[in-house]
């Protein structure tokens, strides 16, 4: 069922546009006419890595660059941007999150797992001990 909507505005700019007061009901965006989504990566300084800052909608890659500049480079320091079509990003499916779960004890893979760490700590402790044992030269 479609019914008409009345548009009225106190904004002189809207009045200038001469939009007819009676508007047909909004039927939604036709299939296939949605804008594409692009992911934006921002580079603050030359040589720095590009950091993902968000996404934008744009009709094509060039306008994606224009819009990305406005959204993400207008107020902060920026020397370059990447825009990448969101659909072109290769990613794991959310259901595969369990791939990343650590199921077994694997501390031996972490630096903290190495025995050498204990040796270093012991050495540091000894050094500290020596400092407190030695009388201060000024006294």
């Amino acid at each position, binding site marked *: 069922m479609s019914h008409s909507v009345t548009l009225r505005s106190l904004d002189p700019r809207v009045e200038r*546009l001469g939009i007819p007061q009676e508007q047909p009901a909004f039927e939604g965006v036709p299939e296939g006419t949605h804008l594409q989504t692009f992911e934006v990566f921002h580079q603050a300084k030359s040589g720095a890595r590009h950091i993902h800052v968000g996404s934008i909608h744009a009709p*094509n890659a060039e306008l994606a660059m224009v*819009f990305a*500049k*406005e959204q993400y480079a207008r107020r902060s320091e920026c020397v370059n941007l990447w825009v990448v079509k969101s659909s072109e990003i290769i990613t794991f499916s959310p259901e595969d999150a369990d791939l990343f779960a650590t199921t077994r004890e694997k501390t031996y893979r972490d630096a903290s797992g190495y025995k050498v760490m204990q040796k270093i700590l012991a050495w540091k402790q000894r050094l500290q001990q020596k400092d407190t044992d030695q009388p201060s030269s000024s006294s």
Partner: protein
Amino acid sequence: MEHRAALDDLLFRMADDALIYGHRNSEWTGLAPILEEDIAFSSIAQDKLGHALALYTMLGQLGHPDPDTLAFTRQERQFRCCHLVELPTQDYAVALMRHALFDYAERNRYRLLEQSSFAPLAALAQKVRGEIKYHTFHASTWLRLLGREGTDESCARMQAALEMLFPYALGIFEPSRYEDELRASGIFAGEEELRRRWLDEIIPLLEEAGYRVPPLDSVQPCYGGRSGYHTEHLQPLLDEMTAVFRIDPSAEW
């Protein structure tokens, strides 16, 4: 100061163009077709007000009143903007086509001014180079997207906008009585040279984007703005733009 009248003429043209064009484009804030574009177009409008401010400030240094007084208290007849920037836009196609026609002229004007013998103008031209490069990038991207790459409707609306606006665009280059003086003093290469450079750039751009450029000999340029004769649209714009200022001209902002 030497060449004072010639400089005044040039600076008021440029400042008034930037102010009125910036104001007109700001009318799309909140109304542009998509959110991202709304922000982009508003940001460009804001840049233009920045250019106007820089130019009015320069006029202030030449002995004119402060920028607010110049922008908000002059009579319609004292404005030196071209008719192109005064036109209200009810169709975003018109706003975008004007954006392309005007900003390619701005780009070439500022390029010429980078060599100006008037140092403050040369410095400003270098400062705004990046902004104007972005403005023309925005304009040319839309031109292509809505032209050959667009739909029959987008192409037809942009073409109609081009035909309506082209005589006004040629009015940007209304000759000044100071042309020879500006050229000889090295301040500015002049409107005729600017027009030539603009045509060299805009015609291929429009044709490649899929539009038919009206033959030049069939077009009567809309002159008058540079000597203070304006379209019926400028006065209502000034009334609206200055409404808040006029409530209390002595208010500190």
